[in-house]
């Protein structure tokens, strides 16, 4: 930690002790954070979306001003953690690809037909080498022409046929 900055960083950390999250009557996330004098709608934003999906979560107002930072969902009870997890899922909507059924390259684009946790998906990827984000050796994200992201949680976990289709681009 940078010397002399401890007070600033410490005051930003949100836990179950100083922040209370809930859904309002319309199903939108709200928070009561007395230290930030805030009570109302909040938005979540991950600082490291590829590396820490349940840590370093920025809590922001409607104007996107940061109210505080959640260091880890473990700082909250199970119910709140699950509420926040669901909200993050909405913000970082990213179907997980289980199987690559068909992958055809044509004129600089690749056309994917996949089976995902959200059902069958068909999408187009432009310049596939630049549209694959390697989060780790075994985990990649694919970004399609609409900016939607799809995750392959484990390359090694893919079946042999799917792997053979994607191998060329890894």
């Amino acid at each position, binding site marked *: 930690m940078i010397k002399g900055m401890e007070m600033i960083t410490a005051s930003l950390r949100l836990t179950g002790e100083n922040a209370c999250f809930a859904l309002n*009557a*319309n*199903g939108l996330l709200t928070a009561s954070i007395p230290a930030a004098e805030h009570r109302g709608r909040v938005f979540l934003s991950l600082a490291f979306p590829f590396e820490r999906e349940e840590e370093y979560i920025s809590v922001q107002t409607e104007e996107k001003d940061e109210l505080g930072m959640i260091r880890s969902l473990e700082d909250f009870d199970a119910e709140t953690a699950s509420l926040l997890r669901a909200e993050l899922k909405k913000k970082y*909507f*990213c179907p997980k690809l289980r199987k690559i059924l068909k992958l055809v390259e044509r004129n600089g684009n690749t056309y994917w037909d996949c089976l995902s946790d*959200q059902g069958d998906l*068909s999408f*187009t990827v432009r310049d596939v080498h630049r549209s694959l984000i390697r989060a780790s050796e075994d985990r990649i994200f694919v970004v399609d022409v*609409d*900016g939607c992201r799809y995750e392959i949680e484990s390359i090694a976990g893919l079946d042999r046929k799917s792997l053979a289709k994607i191998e060329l681009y890894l």
Partner: protein
Amino acid sequence: MESRVDFEASCEKILSSLRDGEGLADRAVFAFPSNLDRKAERHEFAVIFSPKGLYRASREREGEIEFFSFSRIANARMESFLGGAACELLLDGEWMEFCRSFGSEKENISQLVRILKEVCDGVLRPEEARFVYRSSVCPTCRRPMRRGATRCPWCTEKRGAVKKLWDLIRPMRFWILLTMVLFLLNSGLSVVLPMIQRTLVDDYLTADDPVTVLSSFSQVIWVVVAMAAVRVVAVLVSMLRNVILSRVSIKTVVELRRRLYENIQRLSVAGISRHTAGDLMNRVSASTNTISAFLTQHLPSLLEQCLVIVFVAFLLFYHSPIMAVFVLLPAPFVALMYRLIWKRNKKLYHRQWVANSVSNTVLHDVFQGVREVKVYGTEKYEIEKYDKAINEQKNISVRNETAWAKVVPFSDFVIQIGHFILLYFAGNLILDQQMTIGELTMFSSLVDLIYGPLRWMANFPRIIQQAGTAISKVYEVIEEEPDVADRSNAASFPLRGKIEVEGIWFGYDENENVLENVSVSVSPGEFLGIVGRSGVGKSTLINLIMRLYDVDRGAIRIDGVDVRDISQHALRSQIGVVLQETFLFSGTVYENLAYAKPDATYDEVMEAARLANAHAFIMKLPDGYNTFVGEKGYTLSGGERQRIAIARAILHDPRILILDEATSALDTETESLIQEALARLCKDRTTIAIAHRLSTLRNATKLLVLDKKTVAEEGTHEELMAKDGGIYQSLVIAQREMNTIHRETEEKDGK
């Protein structure tokens, strides 16, 4: 996938099933699908906008319909998330989520929100709403395509590789044909030699009658002379062929690089940014060399070797069909072996190309940022990073080459098995006196002649793989359509400088808009200052005026003509730009100044430098205007580089001038020199300036304050200062306070 007509019909069916108290069915003004529920789970809905209100009907569970009357909706807004968007409604004083979509449908959510806002503000009657269904799905093949793309890459007919390559070498076809003729001549001469050898052995060396041998001694000399002459002619033909080939090869590389570079220049800033510098360098240099070698050396060789094989095989079959079969028997097995390895190595060659491109990118980055590397002492880190990149490249290359290193000698051996069988059978035939030694010598030489091309053919799959990868990489860029392209009837005319920005929306990526509904108008000769926090979209706005990108919605007009209808060259050649960071090309100060006007005279260049307050410092340099400034001009200070940029802009003599933070990060004295130069430059030109230092904008006739992606305030300095609590007013007050503190500190230090 469902068509638009089918979707609309299903929406009508939903509405017709709903009847109000008087038994009247509602009707749809427009409708579009949404694909997520409020928990971000996949669920198909139909969003229907009717004169009465909004419907959200599930298309998976019949009868699950929500209705929100316009009388309850006070406002609407769009919330973006990764790859999608949600529409929120302000209902009875509380926000609630109405619908949610990811993928191409988010465009329609954005339209819905805009229409709802207008309805809520009372400026639009619901039944008059105009909605254009936007889909980034190709209407022909139903496959998703890039937003704004005019052609579907799947449906676009592209020329095959052979046609592309033929197009490239067509101007040199005569010379390539000549090299082939020369090669065939050479090969013909090689075939003649074994025949002369046979005559020598059978008619003279192993003749039964020794008298004949002695009497024909003088004739033997002529046979030897004939063999030597054939060799000499073959060498000369070979030399001529090599000279022609090298010239054709160089010409092809140059032509290919020219085409590639030309299209790179045509691409938009966004198009070029999609590739790294290392990637483009790899395509321009290494890949073009590979293609040229393939076209001018390997491909003609392939045809030549095929002809030799056919010709020699014919001779072999002519002389002894059985032995010819033995000789050629292993060839199909070798071909099968290569077919198997081909499939596996195709992927490896592709990966090798990518690894090569990555290591080039690492190198390029380090050379660009060499000062940062030295300042932060991260040499070791950079060495490790490059090590990792080249190790990856090495590993793939080793795997690739090892496979070939194993296969090539083995296939060589397999091919030559035929030779051993031949010796066995020919030996028996000679012993049975069915064949002469001369015939065996000739046959053996012909077999050697056919094995050469067969061995060469064994290596050809590898050449094809390398060339195939290079061709796809080079033509991928050559055939890339520019995002920002001139229309066929694009206009060129002298600009007067009237700029109208009308309700523009723009985002660099699909996920987030940078500007939303921005409008402003600037008259010819007017000075517009753009103010706002960092990242609010100020530079984006001027990039759009220069048409470095195209707006997503709305229009920018110059002298009443949409910038998309003006030729890019005509537009930009009349716009001058001075940026915060001035890039100087490798070359002299003079060359850098004349970059804006290559035909400028020495007097014009010096006059511009004087007006920009640059002449004095240039004359203090050791070589004056001929001082070499090197890449990025590191030898010049920030203020000096800035003045060179202003001089460039003066030389350019633009009708519209754009200043993007032109005076930031300069000391007070330098700033005043530059301010003075800028004041001269702006005279009688339409000027748009961005500045954090508000004093820079003191000459502005109009100020535009951007906030939260849109226009927050607009007016003159006096008008905006009169707005209590306004953004501009608070920025000016904050800057005055900073200046006061700064002055007081300086005075205190002075004491």
